[in-house]
Structures are given as structure tokens and as C-alpha cells.
């Protein structure tokens, strides 16, 4: 394969509005090679904007290898607070010779390019602003030790951008300090590189593009965090005690961050011992097996994985459902099928997970959209798993889990742990006769005992059992138990997180979205309203099974657009399974499945097209199929 084949071909597609000054509203893309140490430079860049009070988001597009392949880091600054991916790149930093040509050719007219001088990219187009920078020369000046140059070279573009875009260099220094801390020498070298870039730009690169930053006050008190770290915090606060995992992108950093938090905050002060166990299992089957064993024995237990792991967990997931054992499973979704694109984002496991395991199994899913929800829903998940005595899947994705998001700081939980119907001497006295699978309360949820709690013991099995937990092959016992499980699933509708509904009474059409599509949907709503006068309502699903609010929302609108980041319109499928035909008739589908985080423009274009609005294709060249594609015949 040639390197350019690896390039991401998400072409830009808008014409640039001719403006003099575009302030705090543009995207910067840094194209490098992975393993080249650009991470520090990129984090310093995003942090310094953030410190200036400007809403930002950062998305890392990296290859599924360790070093030497193309990587793109995109930072969006948005005065309006939009955090979704912006489809168009406004400002390119072209450091990677292998992709530079395609990177430049796919830009919108009017975009700006900082590039490594020898690449001579300026010859490619005349409708862009080019800023050539002799990186090698500059780095040689600031870093005499040739071996270290690779590590500081990238910091030069931060300096250049600081000058061109007007970023406060004291904020850059601060961000750099934060990044490198007290690593004295590294800090010094990088600071020198920053300065060198700045000075070079000051001398040689007169401002020619419209993009500028200015201080705002929109980020005061806020934090920058990845979803996986937020989820890890949530797990810690949820009182997780047993974590069993197997490394897989994009989920590894969830458990790895959790390890570091737990080591810091969950060591018993008096004894120096751990109030948790974290075990790297031999594979995902074992990881879920351990979590199920731990959940059965009363721990708050979890694992975290991605698509291939979910497939491998099928058998244990069915055991968890049928034997009614709590466990929390994070599915940080990536692009399938099979190994697919391990470092790209998708929502492709929704349907499979809803019915994960053979033989009439049904699973609970909760779906965070934000880093804050990664935090709160982690806590919800542990409570739900114990309340409902069943596996609970937290369906997040690579975009949420591994990218950098701005958020209000997380609140300390005030709710105690909800451990569900654990049998106690009091309950036992109240209910009289206990049976492990007896539906005492009519909600399908039985009472459970755990080993060592002094309550009556029982035998847990994945084979047929009656209300007392005894082995049975009787037809009536089987049906009674299966019907109770169905009833429990109905009960779950009341316990899972409620949707978030924004209704515009004037809107004829509604949008249903979930997970990371949220950010693009909100922006798309504004786009359609502002650009096309199209008003929309918005219903954000936060769980499966669906809750009661759903039908009301559908009834309030003429047409409903369901946004899925997968090819097969999987949540449309789940909706179709249970809605009545009149409501199904209102459903339309918007799909996005090219592995890149969904963007507002793709949604707007698709909805507008289906609504019969004229959508002007504004891209320079045919967009790669898929970024533009969407829409099954949507009835």
C-alpha cells in the first residue's frame, strides 16, 4: 500500500464566505506522522486557546499502528460553542510529506496553510494562503543536539500559529508548562522552539488570512478531558471494586486511566491496601467472565472493550442476562465489521448489543453523549446493573472516548449507591418465602443473596431454573421465568436514563439522535434554522429499552430523522421493532459511516435533501462517497 492510500479523504465541501476577519470560528488541522511527537505541540495549542476562554474541541485522527503513518489532529475553535467536528478545514499545518498534496488539494478556497518549506506546497494552488516555514533550519538553531530535534520540531508550528492567529504566548508557555511540568530541559527546549517559530513568523510571514483568535470568557472554570477519563472517574465514584479488562483500542485508556486514579484515590489510608482489584485478563471472554463472577459475589464489577470484544463476550452476556448477574460493560465503539478500522469512530454495535447472545436475550444499553455523561452514566450503570440484576452496556465511541472535550466540571455525587434488591434478614422476614427468581414485587426483579452475606445460598446456572433457582426442564417453569424476564425488561424502561427533549412547538420535524451525534445535531439544527429557516425539535435517546417519552415526541411531529453513525441504520431498526406502524411511517434515516466523527453539515444536507430543499454541493471535488451519502429510503 502506498502512504497516500492511508490518507483520510474527507474532503472539505463548503465555499468560504468572504469575510475580512474570522474570529474564534475556524478549524486547524495539523497533519503529521504518528510517533513524531506532535502530541505535545497539539495539546499546547488547544490548551492555550482554551485558556484564552475560547470554546475548543480536539479530534485526533490516527492510524492503527504505532509510528510512521499519517496522523491528523484537528482543533476547532468555536465562539458559538460548537464541539462537533467541522467538516471544512480552515487552517492546515502540513508537516507530513506523504499526505501534504492531498491535504492541500482538498482544502476549501480561502484556507490557510503553514507548511514545511521544502514541500513547496504553494505551487499546488493559487486560492489559498501559504506560509512556508523552514522547520529543519529553525530547529537546528534552537536544539543543537540532533537526536532531540525530532521531539521539539513540532513546537515550532505552535510558535508560528501563535503569531499568525494571535494566540497569547503567555498562555502557550503556561500550557507548555502544564504539559511538560518540571521536566526542566525539555521545557526549555520546547519554549525555545516556540519562540523561534513566533519570531520567524513575525519576521517573514505577514498576515494574509482572515483567521484570528481573541480572548473570550466562555471557558472559565471548565475542564478539558477525554470521555474515557471521564468514565473512569465515574466508575471510581460509583464505587467500582473489580475491574477486569483486556487491552483494545479505543477502550484501553478507560481502564488505564482508571488504574491511575484508583492508585491515587482508592488506597485505604490506614492500611495502604487497595479497595479494588484491577486485573488484565487473558482475553475478553475471561474479562467478562471475571466481571460476572465478581458481580455474582457482590462486587461492583466492570469491564471495558470495543467491537471484537463485544462479539467475544456474547456467550457470557447471555449467561448474565439469564442467570441475572450484574456487570457493567463499556463498549467504546470503533469501526467494524471485524477488525475494521480500529482507530476510527462509529456507532456500529447498537443492534448486535441489544440482542447480544443466542436465544431470546435482551440487553440494557445506556448511551452517553458527553464527557459529563460518561461520568454520570458510569454511576448510573452500576446502579442499574444492581437494580436490574443484569449486564448493562455503556455504549460510547472512539470520538467521545479518546478525543478532548470541554465540559463543566463534574459534580460530586450526592446519591448513595443503589445496590438493588439484596436480600437482608428484614426483607426475608417480610416476604416470607424466598426464591432466587421469585417475582415478589411484580416488577420482574427478584431478591438476591450473595456468598458470605449469611443469607440463604442458591445455585446459579445458565440452564433452566424455576423461581427457587432449582434446575428444571418443565415447560411451564421455563415460560414463567422467561415471561418474568420480559417483565423485568419492561420495568427497566422506568429505570434507565430518560431522554433529553428539546421541543420547538413550531417545528414539524423532529430529530432523534444519540451518543456523539448530539453535538453535530445541535449545530445542524442551528444551521438549518439560520440558513434555511427550517425549525426542528430534538430528542436525545439515552438508553435502550426506549422510554415512554418517545412516542409522544414522534406524535408531536410529522417526520422524524434518526441519526445513526452506522451503515445499517441500527437504531432505526430498534425503533421499528417496537413502534406502531403509524409512528414507523414517520421515521427517516440519516446515516454517517465513514469512520470520521459526524459533522453538522452532513446532517443538515441530508435532512434538507430529504425535505426537498435544494442542497448546493459546495465542495471543490466530489466528496468521498460516504461522507455525503446517507439516507436509506427512510419510510
Amino acid at each position, binding site marked *: 500500500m502506498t502512504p497516500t492510500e492511508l490518507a483520510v479523504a474527507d474532503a472539505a465541501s463548503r465555499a468560504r464566505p468572504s469575510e475580512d476577519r474570522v474570529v474564534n470560528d475556524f478549524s486547524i488541522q495539523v497533519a503529521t506522522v504518528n510517533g513524531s511527537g506532535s502530541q505535545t505541540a497539539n495539546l499546547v495549542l488547544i490548551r492555550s486557546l482554551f485558556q484564552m476562554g475560547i470554546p475548543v474541541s480536539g479530534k485526533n485522527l490516527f492510524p492503527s499502528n504505532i509510528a510512521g503513518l499519517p496522523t491528523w489532529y484537528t482543533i476547532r475553535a468555536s465562539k458559538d460553542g460548537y464541539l462537533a467536528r467541522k467538516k471544512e478545514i480552515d487552517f492546515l499545518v502540513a508537516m507530513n510529506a506523504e499526505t501534504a498534496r492531498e491535504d492541500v488539494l482538498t482544502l476549501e478556497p480561502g484556507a490557510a496553510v503553514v507548511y514545511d518549506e521544502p514541500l513547496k506546497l504553494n505551487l499546488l494552488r493559487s486560492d489559498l494562503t501559504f506560509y512556508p516555514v523552514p522547520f529543519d533550519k529553525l530547529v537546528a538553531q534552537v536544539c543543537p543536539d540532533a537526536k532531540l530535534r525530532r521531539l521539539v520540531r513540532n513546537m515550532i508550528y505552535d510558535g508560528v500559529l501563535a503569531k499568525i492567529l494571535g494566540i497569547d504566548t503567555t498562555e502557550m508557555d503556561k500550557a507548555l508548562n502544564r504539559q511538560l511540568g518540571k521536566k526542566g530541559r525539555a521545557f526549555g527546549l520546547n519554549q525555545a522552539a516556540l519562540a523561534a517559530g513566533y519570531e520567524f513568523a513575525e519576521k517573514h510571514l505577514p498576515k494574509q488570512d482572515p483567521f484570528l483568535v481573541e480572548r473570550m470568557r466562555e471557558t472559565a472554570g471548565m475542564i478539558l478531558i477525554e470521555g474515557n477519563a471521564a468514565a473512569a*472517574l465515574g466508575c471510581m465514584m460509583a464505587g467500582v471494586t473489580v475491574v477486569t479488562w483486556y487491552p483494545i483500542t479505543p477502550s484501553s485508556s478507560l481502564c488505564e486511566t482508571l488504574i491511575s486514579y484508583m492508585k491515587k484515590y482508592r488506597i485505604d489510608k490506614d492500611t495502604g491496601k487497595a479497595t479494588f482489584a484491577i486485573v488484565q485478563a487473558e482475553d475478553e471472554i475471561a474479562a467478562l*467472565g471475571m466481571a460476572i*463472577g465478581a458481580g455474582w459475589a*457482590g462486587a461492583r464489577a466492570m469491564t471495558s472493550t470495543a467491537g471484537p470484544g463485544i462479539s467475544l463476550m456474547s456467550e457470557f452476556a447471555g449467561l448474565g442476562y439469564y442467570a441475572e448477574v450484574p456487570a457493567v460493560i463499556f463498549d467504546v465503539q470503533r469501526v467494524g465489521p471485524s477488525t475494521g478500522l480500529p482507530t476510527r469512530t462509529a456507532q456500529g454495535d447498537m443492534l448486535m448489543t441489544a440482542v447480544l447472545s443466542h436465544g431470546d436475550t435482551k440487553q440494557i444499553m445506556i448511551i452517553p453523549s458527553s464527557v459529563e455523561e460518561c461520568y454520570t452514566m458510569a454511576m448510573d450503570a452500576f446502579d442499574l446493573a444492581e437494580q436490574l440484576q443484569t449486564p448493562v452496556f455503556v455504549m460510547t465511541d472512539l470520538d467521545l472516548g479518546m478525543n478532548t472535550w470541554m465540559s463543566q466540571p463534574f459534580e460530586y455525587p450526592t446519591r448513595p449507591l443503589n445496590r438493588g434488591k439484596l436480600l437482608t434478614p428484614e426483607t426475608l422476614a417480610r416476604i416470607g418465602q424466598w426464591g432466587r427468581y421469585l417475582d415478589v414485587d411484580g416488577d420482574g426483579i427478584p431478591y438476591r443473596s450473595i*456468598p458470605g452475606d449469611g443469607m440463604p445460598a442458591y445455585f446459579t446456572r445458565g440452564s433452566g431454573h424455576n423461581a427457587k433457582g432449582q434446575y428444571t426442564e418443565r415447560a411451564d417453569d421455563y415460560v414463567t421465568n422467561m415471561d418474568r424476564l420480559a417483565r423485568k425488561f419492561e420495568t427497566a424502561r422506568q429505570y434507565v436514563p430518560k431522554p433529553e427533549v428539546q421541543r420547538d412547538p413550531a417545528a414539524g420535524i423532529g430529530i432523534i439522535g444519540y451518543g456523539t451525534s448530539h453535538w453535530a445535531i445541535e449545530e445542524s439544527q442551528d444551521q438549518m434554522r439560520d440558513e434555511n429557516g427550517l425549525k426542528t425539535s430534538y430528542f436525545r435517546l439515552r438508553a435502550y429499552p426506549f422510554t415512554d417519552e418517545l412516542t409522544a415526541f414522534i406524535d408531536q411531529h410529522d417526520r422524524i430523522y434518526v441519526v445513526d453513525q452506522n451503515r445499517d441504520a441500527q437504531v432505526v431498526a430498534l425503533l421499528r421493532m417496537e413502534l406502531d406502524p403509524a409512528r414507523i411511517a414517520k421515521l427517516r434515516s440519516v446515516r454517517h459511516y465513514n469512520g470520521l466523527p459526524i459533522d453538522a453539515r452532513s446532517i443538515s444536507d441530508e435532512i434538507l435533501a430529504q425535505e426537498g430543499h435544494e442542497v448546493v454541493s459546495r465542495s471543490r471535488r466530489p466528496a468521498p462517497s460516504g461522507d455525503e451519502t446517507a439516507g436509506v429510503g427512510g419510510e
Partner: protein
Amino acid sequence: MSTVTPTPGRKVNRIGLEQQQYRGGKTTLCAGCGHNSISERVTEAFYEMGVHPSNVIKLSGIGCSSKSPAYFLGGSHGFNAVHGRMPSVGTGALLANRKLIAIGVSGDGDTGAIGIGQFVHLMRRNLPIIYIIEDNGCYGLTKGQFSPTADLGSKLKTGVVNDLPPIDTCALAIELGATFVARSFSGDKKQLLSLLKAALSHRGTVMLDVISPCVTFNDHEGSTKSYAYAKDHDDPLEEVSFVPFFEDINVDYEPGTTQEVVMHDGSKLYLKKLDESYDPTDKIAALRVLQEAQRRGEFATGVIYIEPDRDDFLELLNLVDEPLAMLPLEKVRPPREALEEVMESLR
């Protein structure tokens, strides 16, 4: 824990329970199945050692063998998991509650075929569990197909001959780090009982491979896991006697003939060696003994390898003493300041 008032005059163990209280449900295995004898020995061992059933968890996979835990210790929690995956469930349960005493029962198919991966990693971790393979060289529950412990040349009832070498689960366990590895025969009540009692005194993984004939599918001539074959080819390494810590008995033995192993709870295991040169604390010697027995078509029984002092998996994890499952909110939710500190670092 339920309080127990023993009927006066009835025989009780040191914690005041009768043997009856260690029994389980009525077996649904075939009459004469070796697995039933093993369940009886387990019942006796736990009774005689005075282990409270409510401190015990019983785990298994899928198979006739894996049904056994329903037939002993009715007062203990049990978990009949999925095929071949008992090790992970057991690991999780012990992580949740390190005070539990875990006994896992598997079959040679459940362990040797689908479950060999989890077996390998359980052994490697030295998880404190008594892992019993009820080894009949076949898949009983699915009607008699060969399992991976079937010996080379062994015959199915249908006449089909096994042409793959067996996996020696004992050799594998030793190689991988199990710290107490023994083999026995369901028909040898005395040896098996001693081994089970010793197992209860060991800290770390006990891997006990018990030849346990399947009377329905693998008890014919030509089988090397039949009662007849097992009786004729049982080659005990030692006479095993076990003295639990709570019994103050001194065993007299001639030095050189008997090895005394002190278990971590102070119990003593006396191995009167039948082959004097054999040292069950020497890995290579243990592997050699297994290989030579196999070459002769025999199976060496008794304690094959023992390492009484290695840290088990739960110790390596440096867990608090209380079971993780029982920790109160204040132990598992860090204080407000902790969250604040993290938030500050992200600002």
C-alpha cells in the same frame, strides 16, 4: 451465617455440623459414574475439615462433571457457568470476596478442550482455588466423544481409535505455576480424601486431576479410563496422610522414607514415598515422573508437585482485608476533595 444446633448424640465436626449438612441434592448422574464418588469425598473432606458451607463457593463449567457441585455442599452458593469458563468466574468471585473458599469442578473436555486457555491462566495466577478435573477421557454429557485427555490408542465404544497424544493436565499445571498438583482415582477413597483435606490447607492453586470413569461411554475394554484399567495402572507415588492443624497428632516416620510438608495453616502432609528418590518439590522431577508413567501406560497418583509458600494471586493484589463486595460507601467513594483535585488538574 445460620446458627446450627446439632441434634444431641449425633456425630458433629469441630464447628458443630453433621455430615448431613455437607450433602447436596440427589445426583442425576448415571449410577456408578466416577463423578459421584468424588462428590462423596468432597462432602467428607469439607465435613472433616470443619469448613462452614456458607464460606464456600462451588464453581463449574458444563458437562456431567460440572453438574457435580449441585450434589455436594447444598448450603453453599454454587455457580454452574458456561462451558470451559469456570476459571474466569471463579477468579472474579474471589476478587470480590477473598474470604471465600472456592472449589471448582470441571471435566476433561471442559478443561482440556474449550477451557484450556482459561485453565492456563488460572494456573499461572496461582489463584487460591481447589480445581478438580473429573477426568474420564471423554465427553460424557454429549455422549462419549474423545476429549483431549484421551490416551493415544484409546478406543471409543464404536471402535474409533484416538490418534492424538493426550494433554497431561498435571504436567501443564506444574509447568504453568500451580503450587499443588496431584492426581488420583475416584476409586481410591483414602488417597482422594487425604488429598482433598490437604487441598483445603493449601494457599494457592490446587490442581487435582481425578481419573473418574464414565460407566456409560468409556468403561469398556480398550479404554484407558475404565475402572478396570485405572485399577490396574494406578501407580501411587506415595502413601499420603494428612494431619489437620486442629488435630494434635505426631506421626512417627523413619527419616528418608517420608517427606513432611507443612501447609500454610500449620496442617501437615506426610508423604511416605514409594520411590525414595522422588521429591515433589522439584518441578523437573515431577515432570519426569509424569512422563515416565505415561510412557509405561500408567498414571502416577498422589502429590506430584507442591510449593507451599508462594504468594497467591489475591496476595499479589494487595487487597484490603474485608471482602471488596462488602466495603461500605465511604471506603469505595473517594471524598469530594479528590474529585476537586482531579477537576483542578483538568482546568
